[in-house]
């Protein structure tokens, strides 16, 4: 997507009349990186889900735009890659099957096979690609989530707790992915880890003064 931009205007969210955050306004263009940080329960995951388009805000809006005009709903799915502790893949399928089946739902694209192989190699799951995800360790599941997020090379990558469950090699992989994404797209990270916050140029701190 050319000249992809994320526009957030007066964004607010409340659950059962308790306000999580309100009045958030910012925009991100290709090459921007944003860290969302704050205490536990401050709404980082909530905000990341709203930015990923899977949760509706209570007020304000989030808009994805390409070349100046808003993107239609069908194409929004192609714009985001999302990694989150709340994300799960199908235990009864292998890594390869998961990626294939989910990708077929998202976009019915050809030359899928090579891309699935490539991304599995990238995240280090090539050896175990034909094992059912149900027997994966939590670290392997996290790597598979990255494979799922990167498969369609989205212009925007949103990572909630990017290094959870990962060993040192896994953390290196994430740093690599982050570096690559910052060059060509938008990166949003929700985290408490101060090192991870420093990966990003911009920062939002939630739950201050509320």
């Amino acid at each position: 997507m050319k000249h992809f931009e994320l526009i957030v205007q007066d964004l607010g969210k409340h659950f059962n009349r308790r306000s999580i955050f309100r009045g958030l306004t910012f925009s991100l263009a290709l090459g921007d990186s944003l860290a969302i940080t704050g205490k536990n329960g401050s709404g980082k995951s909530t905000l990341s889900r709203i930015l990923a388009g899977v949760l509706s805000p209570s007020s304000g809006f989030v808009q994805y735009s390409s070349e100046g005009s808003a993107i239609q709903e069908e194409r929004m799915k192609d714009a985001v890659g999302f990694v989150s502790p709340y994300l799960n893949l199908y235990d009864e399928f292998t890594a390869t099957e998961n990626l294939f089946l989910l990708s077929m739902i998202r976009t019915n694209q050809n030359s899928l096979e090579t891309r699935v192989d490539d991304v599995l190699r990238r995240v280090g799951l090539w050896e175990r690609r034909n094992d059912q995800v149900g027997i994966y360790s939590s670290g392997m599941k996290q790597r598979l989530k990255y494979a799922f997020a990167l498969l369609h090379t989205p212009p925007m990558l949103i990572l909630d707790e990017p290094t959870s469950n990962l060993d040192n090699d896994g953390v290196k992989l994430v740093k690599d992915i982050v570096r690559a994404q910052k060059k060509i797209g938008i990166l949003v990270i929700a985290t408490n880890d101060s090192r991870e916050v420093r990966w990003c140029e911009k920062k939002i701190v939630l739950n201050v003064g509320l």
Partner: protein
Amino acid sequence: MSSWAGTFAVVSKDVRSEWRTRYAVNSLLMFVVTAVSIILFALRSADPASDLLAGMLWVVIFFTAMSGMSRVFVSEEERGTTLTLQLVATPTVVYFGKLLFNSVLILFLSLIISLMFQLLFQEFSIKSYAVYVISLMLGSLGFSAASTIIAAIIAKTRSRGTLYAVLLFPLLIIPLMAGMSSTIKALEGSPFGEALPDFQVLAAYLMVMVAGSSLLFDYVWKE
């Protein structure tokens, strides 16, 4: 439209998942066998007339629907894959995919139920085949349409099982009555024209439910 490809991909995923886990084959077929057996046992010394048997046929289909049609959404919730699906598919793709899956499932199960009835009950002899087939199909599809949207509504609640039955039952009365009525006519050998009013009701119900549900599903799916 590419969204049809997405819809079939959703069905494909569910079918493959089914193949892997064998839920429908194990649980639902057993449920069907159990339900028919109970009726067989209850009616063993009576000499059931065709209209009673038609009623029993639809009762079994009804309870099978109440038992098995919620899985398409509840299983995604239980495994935490609803979010995953939300990331890859628009609401319309998800709705029609799940509806298609449920429809195929209930048509398959009602066929099994029907065959069991034909085998086990002598009085259950179909005299107007065309009427019978259309009655079974339209009725089952109507059940599927209502069941799918209600399954989506209760998927995120607690006490899903009981709530599902409570919400679904009032909605299934219409196709149940029209289905029973036309099936009785099929067993008695009535001409097609007599069953036509029932078919009109079933067809209208099906169209209204699918159209309405597809419009409302967006509000159920997007939080």
